[in-house]
């Protein structure tokens, strides 16, 4: 039960920053859907919570934060590649700054509680 609660909390936390993670893995090099999942995994994000990346990719595309094109694949249909657009890069920069700021604030609060509990 505790594990489920913990996973649910993790999903909620990820929900706010997963778009940044997706932009981060295509900022240097385009990738198709599963390749993005693989890059996230290689950077330590093994699961993306209760949802999947596809709806989020749809939103990033609709908002113009990613550009898309199709490239041939070996034997299969052409794959849809995503890359960060100029506005996506700006959104990533701003998002990373905001994330670090919030993370610092939250860490400060949690550290205080930890000290009080420990004391």
């Amino acid at each position, binding site marked *: 039960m505790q594990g489920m609660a913990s996973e649910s909390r993790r999903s909620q936390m990820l929900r706010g920053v997963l778009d940044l993670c997706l932009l981060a893995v295509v900022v240097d*090099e385009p*990738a*198709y*859907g*599963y*390749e993005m*999942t*693989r*890059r996230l*995994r*290689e950077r330590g994000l*093994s*699961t*993306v*919570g*209760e*949802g*999947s990346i*596809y*709806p*989020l990719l*749809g*939103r990033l*595309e*609709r908002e113009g934060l990613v550009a*898309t*094109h*199709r*490239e*041939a*694949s*070996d034997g*299969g*249909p*052409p*794959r*849809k590649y995503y890359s960060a657009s100029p506005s996506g890069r700006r959104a990533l920069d701003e998002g990373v700054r905001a994330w670090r700021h919030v993370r610092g604030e939250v860490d400060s609060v949690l550290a205080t509680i930890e000290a009080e509990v420990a004391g």
Partner: protein
Amino acid sequence: MRKYVEECRREWKRLGVPAVIADEMASDLDADLAEAEAEGIPAAGVLGGADPNQLAAAWARERGLISEPRLRKTSRTRLSVVAPAVGLVVLGALLGIGGFAILAKPTASPSSVQPVHGPPPRLVRVPNLIGLQLCHAQYVAHAHGFQLVVRVRQSFCRGNVVTHQRPTANALVPRHWPMALRARLDPVRVPNLVGKSEGAAENILDPLGLMVRHWPNLPLQVRRHMRLSDRRIVGQNPQPGTMLQPPHAVTLWLSPAKS
């Protein structure tokens, strides 16, 4: 196609997502799941815990293929209504047959639109795109309020002229109504790429509308790790001088590793 993907496709159909876009999303999802399966990654690693209906609805909604009120309405009452607004779909890079590319196919006519909620949809007059280069047609369509859901690459769409469009020019349709374009794709002569780097070959093929297929076909990370991109092309298929219909691919063989 996997059962999960088929269920997604059914849900997209129910929600009124145009078939050509539903096919595209289903194909992408199926290819991703196949690749994950080949790597021993369970489907949950790709899909999270989402069931097909949830995923299909969320994906379509976030792409702007269906509206929130429509989603809620259809979820509750299962009304069969045509989805609003999907935009201009250009799939020329995908389907190249006999000198023409069927770029998109709308799934419903404007007359089948039924009112859902709120004010009546704003109508826009369809611009005449026939005779325009595909790049320019995309630009004009965008300027007229059509959302471009799928674009072809700039380097590819240059030089390919729109020959058919649906709805026809001057028709009045709801803003963001799906539009189908067909463009002429003339065959091009395959250049000689032997001795060139992989990057140089891509720069040559890209403006011709031809795609690159590498041999061996390895994931990007592996390719970078092995520094395949530093190697030279030692062979290609089709051979130089062959006439090839875009957007077919040219397969490149790279030189062995330097010792």
